[in-house]
């Protein structure tokens, strides 16, 4: 069994309204050194596959088809062995 840890983030060129609201709240708390906040999604998949490569390929297709919308989002995948 493999664990895929996926981060889906809004493309850098796209304004992130949630991140902006969180940044403003953090500034109100006095953390003025925080220049920017970007909010994304963290997804875990537990995949039964014969190899790490195959698990990664399943995770990639899942992102492309459903988990991320590549019009506005990017994703990264990290695969580890899991029991």
């Amino acid at each position, binding site marked *: 069994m493999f664990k895929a840890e996926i981060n889906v983030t809004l493309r850098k060129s796209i304004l992130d309204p*949630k991140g902006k609201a969180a940044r403003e709240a953090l500034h109100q708390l006095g953390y003025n050194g925080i220049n920017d906040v970007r909010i994304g999604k963290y997804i875990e998949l537990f995949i039964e596959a014969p190899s790490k490569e195959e698990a990664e390929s399943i995770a990639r297709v899942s992102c492309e088809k459903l988990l991320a*919308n590549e019009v506005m989002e990017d994703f990264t995948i990290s695969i580890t062995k899991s029991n």
Partner: protein
Amino acid sequence: MATFGVIVFPGSNCDHDAYHALKHIMGVDTRFIFHKETDLGHVDGIVVPGGFSYGDYLRSGAIARFSPVMQAVSDFAAKGGPVIGICNGFQILLESGLLPGAMLHNEQLRFTCKHVWLKTEAFDTPFTSAIPKDTLLHIPVAHGEGNYYADEDTLKQLEDQNRIVFRYVDADGNASREANPNGAIGNIAGICNEKRNVVGMMPHPERAMETLLGSADGKFVFDSVMQSI
């Protein structure tokens, strides 16, 4: 007699409004089509209604696009059948790839529910052909994710092919920043596909069908499609 289908997903909540608009106000034969259906049966037009299909989990419209009925809707659209996606229905059409672009959260992060003014820019779609050319439509929006986004190339293509169907404007017809309820790029409220038979719009024409309830401007949209089929 013409027959309309209104798609029903778990979480749709404007399906009955669309049904009422078509069946009782337009007087058209109308039936609900459940998301599990693989065949639309005989229909002359399809409404993909608003709401929160599948709870808007993941992204609005992301799960609905894989429901069995959406394949049938895609086939119907490919044959030139008129399809309108309203609000969440628009989001579903974007996720399905029937229309280009994506929806971001409203710029101001609030769910926005109010009447807006719309300028029609494309009159050659089945849903806009009967809209009087010099008339702005006054119809409501109700959404949290209506901030339309498309990359520069897509946007240019939409502009060049005159596929931006509706823009948010002020009462004088100016597409100003103040008139934009959600931050949508270019004040875009609605677009169509290349063949022009698939239209998506964030505002709700089905909620503006009776002057008693504030506005009947939405009727122009349904009058158009009645005349087109």
